[in-house]
């Protein structure tokens, strides 16, 4: 029986061995499937594109597709409004308050773009590009693009409101306090913008393939950084940074190429005078998602059934030399859709002497920088200029003048713009003082950049230079008051360099209160 026991044991151990050989050596395995985590470089590209899309914030009128330029142009002395657009009239006549819907709209668009940039930055940071067959350079480019866009959003936020909440982290890192963010000093916000732009200029490519139009380049980052230094009145930094953009990948569209008028043709949307623009789609269905509102709004009904929401004061027409090609970007004289001739009256530099059966005296002029084909084509696909080379040249001219007074390089830079427009060149001797050259540069900027969103910034900067004070509004007041229906609307107690914080924000953010708008609106 002893033997038997052994055999039973043997048989049993054979059985166990048969199983354990097969299975006993295998380890328990573990894996995580996390659909929250985007892991591929293609996801990084999607995040970047989604951030660019924030520039038009659903298209139509959103942010750079429209409302931002209401805030930048209406309060100035060039663009005015039709009486039908109440929110716009408030901006134009400086009678806005914290309830103004357009102010609120731009505020929310800006912080949506900031939020998209923050989320995208986090997504891109967490993707291993190299291990997934891509390159670290592309990862840095993607980070540079979203940081450029965030800096652009904060440029607008600080231009419009000064101190604003600063968010440079993704929502996954929010604390409860972040639900009611306090205001951050503008200088601190600008420090963050400078960090973003310095990263962007170091990591963005100088150019892209033709299929990658409208992406931010290192030149765009440098130009925006230059614009920021200009706003901070840091002339040396501005002049140096702007010089880095010059004579590289950008130039002015020459007269031989068709000059400044052809720059704004819809067939010329990729000209290398454009450093950074809002691109829109030409597809009819793009309306409200991938279009902008400038085409439809810029021209009047009589011209091509436009809505005429950006009329320009007639006096603006009169400042142009008849030889100035840029005057051709205004509706000085045209045949209306009803067959009459609409012309600017003679006292404003136009051709019309008197109204007649077939002649109508224009009461406004309209810009032709955003041509559209008429027939209620809502899907405006014009470039909305954000940064262009002519601006870089004139900013550097201005910075050098502020640094050194009248100098040959500044005059040469201004002359590049003038001769392209068909005007005679200035000589250095024409300017006896820094102020004289400064005024000439701002006059040139006005004629060059009308309806491109620059006028409010320019009037404020001009005031600070001319008034020799970072809070002066001397030029703003001088230029804007004569265009108000009631000059008494203007109040020296209001700082027109700062818009009121939207009431919606004040009411939903417990860190803000109504008194923040003291001095920003007329009480």
């Amino acid at each position, binding site marked *: 029986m002893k033997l*038997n026991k052994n055999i039973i044991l043997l048989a049993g151990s054979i059985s166990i061995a048969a199983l354990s050989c097969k299975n006993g050596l295998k380890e*328990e395995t573990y894996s995580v499937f996390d659909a929250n985590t985007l892991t591929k470089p293609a996801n990084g590209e999607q995040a970047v594109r989604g951030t660019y899309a924030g520039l038009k914030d659903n298209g139509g009128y959103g942010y750079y597709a429209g409302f931002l330029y209401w805030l930048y142009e209406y309060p100035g002395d060039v663009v005015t409004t039709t009486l039908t657009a109440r929110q716009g009239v408030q901006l134009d006549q400086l009678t806005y308050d914290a309830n103004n819907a357009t102010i609120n709209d731009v505020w929310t668009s800006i912080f949506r773009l900031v939020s998209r940039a923050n989320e995208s930055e986090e997504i891109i940071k967490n993707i291993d590009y190299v291990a997934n067959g891509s390159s670290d350079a592309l990862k840095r480019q993607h980070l540079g693009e979203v940081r450029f866009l965030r800096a652009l959003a904060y440029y607008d936020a600080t231009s419009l409101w000064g101190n604003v909440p600063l968010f440079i982290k993704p929502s996954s890192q929010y604390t409860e306090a972040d639900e009611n963010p306090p205001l951050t000093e503008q200088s601190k916000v600008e420090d963050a913008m400078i960090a973003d732009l310095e990263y962007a200029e170091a990591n963005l490519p100088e150019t892209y393939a033709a299929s990658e139009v409208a992406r931010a380049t290192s030149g765009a980052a440098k130009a925006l950084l230059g614009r920021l230094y200009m706003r901070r009145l840091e002339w040396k930094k501005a002049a140096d940074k702007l010089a880095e953009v010059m004579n590289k990948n950008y130039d002015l569209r020459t007269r031989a190429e068709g000059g400044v008028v052809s720059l704004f043709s819809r067939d010329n949307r990729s000209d290398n005078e454009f450093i950074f623009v809002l691109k829109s789609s030409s597809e009819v269905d793009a309306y409200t998602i991938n279009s902008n509102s400038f085409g439809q709004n810029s021209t009047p009904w009589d011209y091509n059934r436009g809505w005429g929401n950006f009329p320009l004061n007639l006096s603006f027409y009169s400042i142009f030399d008849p030889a100035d090609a840029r005057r051709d970007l205004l509706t000085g004289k045209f045949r209306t859709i009803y067959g009459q001739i609409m012309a600017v009256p003679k006292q404003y530099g136009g051709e019309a002497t008197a109204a007649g059966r077939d002649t109508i005296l224009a009461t406004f002029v309209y810009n032709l920088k955003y041509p559209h084909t008429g027939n209620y084509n809502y899907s405006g696909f014009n470039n909305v200029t954000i940064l262009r080379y002519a601006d870089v040249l004139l900013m550097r001219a201005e910075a050098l003048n502020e640094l050194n007074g009248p100098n040959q390089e500044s005059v040469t830079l201004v002359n590049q713009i003038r001769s392209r427009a068909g005007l005679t060149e200035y000589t250095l001797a024409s300017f006896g003082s820094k102020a004289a050259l400064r005024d000439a540069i701002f006059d040139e900027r006005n004629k060059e950049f009308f309806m491109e969103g620059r006028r409010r910034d320019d009037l404020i900067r001009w005031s600070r230079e001319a008034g020799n004070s970072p809070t002066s509004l001397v030029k703003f007041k001088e230029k804007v008051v004569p265009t108000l229906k009631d000059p008494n609307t203007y109040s020296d107690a209001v700082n027109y360099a700062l818009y009121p914080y939207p009431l919606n924000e004040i009411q939903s953010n417990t860190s803000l209160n109504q008194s923040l708008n003291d001095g920003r609106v007329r009480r």
Partner: protein
Amino acid sequence: MIKKDKILTILLALAGLAGAIILYLYKDDLRPLRIKHIELVKLPANRLRFQVNVQTTRNCNTVLAYWKTGTKDTLYTKVSADGSNHKLFITATEGRTRYQFKVQAAVDGDVVESKTYPLVTQPIYQATPYFTLEQVDSALKPELKNKYFLTQILTEPGSMVIIDSKGEIVWYEPFKKGVKVSHWTKDKTILAIVGPEKIPSSGGDEIIEMGLDGKIITHLKKGKGDMDKLVHHEVRKDKDGNIYSLTFTQKIVDLSSVKGKQQDTVKGDGLVLFSKAGKKLWEWSVLDHLDPLADPEILKHKKDWVHGNAAFRLPDGNFLMSFRDLNQIWKIDFKTGKVLWKFGEKGDMRMAPAEYFHAQHYIHPVQDGNYMLLDNGDKTHISRAMIFKLDEAQKEAKALNIVTLPPEYYTTAKGSAALFGKKKDKVLFCLTDPRSFLITDMKGKILWRIQVGGDPYRLEEIDDFLYTKPTFK
């Protein structure tokens, strides 16, 4: 003897070999129980719910044990029974917290345990407002252990929300529409009315019953199947598992005698009862039992007459229903549809005027056949919980308990009040206007208070939210 032994030995050896062959052939059933693979699944739709897929070598039961890193309080998932591919759901976690978990598998007395794995939860900022514990009486703390509370976000986007006694969200389910009212059922599921904000009166066009694992168990939609009316304010299950709710009903009435139209529309409230499968079993309308012309201001009220706002099906099968604008509770006979009694101001029961309630909510039965409600206190601007004893034969109603709240907790509309605690000697309040959840003693002393960053409609205690430790032997 020797020969016999030899034969026996050979036979036994052969038997052993045969056994080995059989074991080898049927190894999947007979080999040792082992966990082959564990997969943790994180989906963006819900940041507090995690699916864990477990593969085992043999058919068995599995459960997942998890705990906050550094603590000993272990939580369990529901057991997944008798299979080799298991889906386990972690359904009770807090955001932004580190957990560890392991899987246990058991069959026929054989128990194996996996290694321990980490789980880190993300913040859930996007779905819900905050709930902040402002005050808690230390004497109440033992009673709050393992207590959870179901509430809802009725604005868009809406949410079903379960919080713990500290106000931490431990479970939620977001919806694009608002979640108008919710109810924790005996089956450990959440029943809710879901609808867009534009439907007023806590109304919705969907009834959804959902398990803690996120699975939709019942989904009724207006216009589909038997659901032909919007529902509002209340959704519950009766003891047979049928679902009932309030409905909006309407009737063409001749109001010409009070300067209305000859064919005027009066909108009122009804009740509806659905089977689990969504078949309509029964319905009832107040418009069949009230004469609109008895209301001198019917033209003013005809769009939302009487405003029903709560219902409860009693064990005897009959319904309680609360009408805000009548300041009354009715009992409705299930078989005949007749109104058995009206209780409240101008009702059938004798009552002390001080015990009249106004714009009341949340009528429900409590122990000893008594009834409890939240008196919003439309007249006095003081909200209170009230428990009534009704003598149906003598037609008399008497308040046994009145728990009066300080004036700052007055809520003009919505809200709930229910007994709380092992001895049912406390009251749990949901107060919408002051955005507060309270537990008080029967004298109204506040023992616990949570501040809500939104408008809650109702709050229910859940004492069986957690799965208990299974006995694996």
